[in-house]
């Protein structure tokens, strides 16, 4: 049974208004990935995570909670949950992923930052002012709440003298680059994905062969933000042979993730279909969006190795991996 749309949208919108994120998590946990990098605070150019990768372990915990208790029982409590959530941050109480799960996804923004530093890009970070950009609330039509939130983030950029933002995921990229100019008067910030920035700093030589992967394009990158060639150029330069699935580039097939909040069964069905398309091409898959990463991994049930593109670009994926075991056996 689907969760009641009105209450779910209400909780997410309340959280955005009251706590600055649809899924509020402590700032010390959202910024932990930067602890050892010594990035300067603010500056003309900043790396902006929008908390997306850091939120994934919390989303996974909430999804497991729904699976455990069942949509029907949670649906019966949704109205009460919304009222209670206004007083107490329900997300932080309900979803407490262990350090190991958080570390896996914290590694990705840290890897992106190191890739940019290695390419000679100078940037700062906003630490606790690196806020969720509001994508889910905007998608659900909560325009007024998102507009207020966008003005808050634009104010943070102004206060720190930010003129250019480097993003690390497609949802934050679209919000800051395409949506915010429609919501905030005088918004004048250049926004680029780190993939676009790195593509401007391609190494002169191609790295030794690191095997072949099937690429899963993000819907937003491919159809909204024209980030199609950059990931392919970067993977090729990193020595990775990119294979195209049945639906690729501007005609990519959705991972199903956007339906996860309200209709997890529909999200799972779309993800399973996409995994089937990808698995036909190669056992290793590269994604460039945290939502795609978690949704496809869940649907693959260990029958594919699905990794974020930053891991391939950083060369942390071992070359020439062994074939996967029989279907259903876990490989990570």
């Amino acid at each position: 049974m689907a969760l009641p749309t009105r209450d779910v949208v209400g909780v997410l919108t309340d959280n955005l208004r009251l706590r600055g994120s649809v899924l509020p998590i402590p700032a010390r946990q959202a910024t932990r990935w930067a602890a050892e990098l010594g990035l300067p605070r603010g500056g003309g150019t900043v790396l902006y995570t929008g908390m997306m990768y850091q939120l994934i372990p919390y989303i996974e915990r909430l999804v497991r909670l729904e699976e455990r208790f069942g949509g029907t029982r949670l649906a019966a409590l949704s109205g009460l949950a919304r009222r209670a959530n206004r007083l107490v941050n329900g997300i932080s109480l309900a979803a407490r992923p262990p350090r190991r799960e958080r570390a896996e996804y914290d590694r990705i923004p840290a890897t992106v930052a190191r890739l940019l530093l290695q390419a000679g890009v100078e940037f700062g970070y906003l630490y606790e002012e690196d806020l969720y950009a509001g994508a889910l609330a905007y998608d659900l039509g909560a325009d007024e709440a998102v507009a207020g939130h966008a003005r808050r983030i634009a104010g943070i950029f102004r206060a720190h003298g930010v003129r250019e933002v480097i993003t690390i995921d497609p949802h934050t990229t679209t919000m800051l680059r395409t949506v915010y100019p429609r919501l905030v008067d005088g918004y004048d910030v250049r926004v680029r994905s780190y993939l676009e920035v790195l593509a401007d700093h391609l190494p002169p030589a191609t790295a030794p062969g690191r095997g072949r992967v099937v690429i899963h394009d993000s819907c937003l990158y491919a159809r909204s933000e024209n980030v199609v060639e950059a990931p392919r150029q970067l993977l090729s330069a990193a020595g990775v042979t990119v294979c195209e699935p049945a639906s690729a580039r501007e005609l990519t097939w959705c991972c199903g993730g956007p339906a996860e909040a309200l209709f997890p069964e529909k999200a799972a069905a779309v993800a399973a279909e996409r995994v089937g398309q990808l698995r036909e091409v190669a056992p290793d898959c590269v994604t460039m969006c945290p939502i795609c990463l978690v949704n496809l991994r869940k649907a693959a049930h260990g029958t594919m190795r699905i990794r974020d593109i930053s891991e391939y670009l950083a060369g942390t994926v071992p070359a020439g991996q062994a074939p996967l075991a029989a279907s259903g056996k876990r490989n990570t």
Partner: protein
Amino acid sequence: MTAAITSAAPGLAGELARLGDFDAQLCMNCGICTAACPLGIDVLPRRVLRYAVLGLGEHVRAESEAVFSCLLCRACEANCPAGVHIAEDVRLLRRWLAEEGH
């Protein structure tokens, strides 16, 4: 569900235009969008948008779950011969439904 065109009232499209750049009236009703949709829900997006253009608010309300199921992935838009901004139109329907208390 069959929508009788005689009951059409254009007011809803006007309300949606007030909320944003609603452009489903450009739709040629060809159905490529529905064929391209990863969800495979037969009312999504062509019929739901047609209901909105015809002002059939009750029909849109009845399909609230389909409207909120949309992935906003824009596979429909990538294939639309009329260049309709389908995902934004669906998002505006969600906003309208939310204001209506759905």
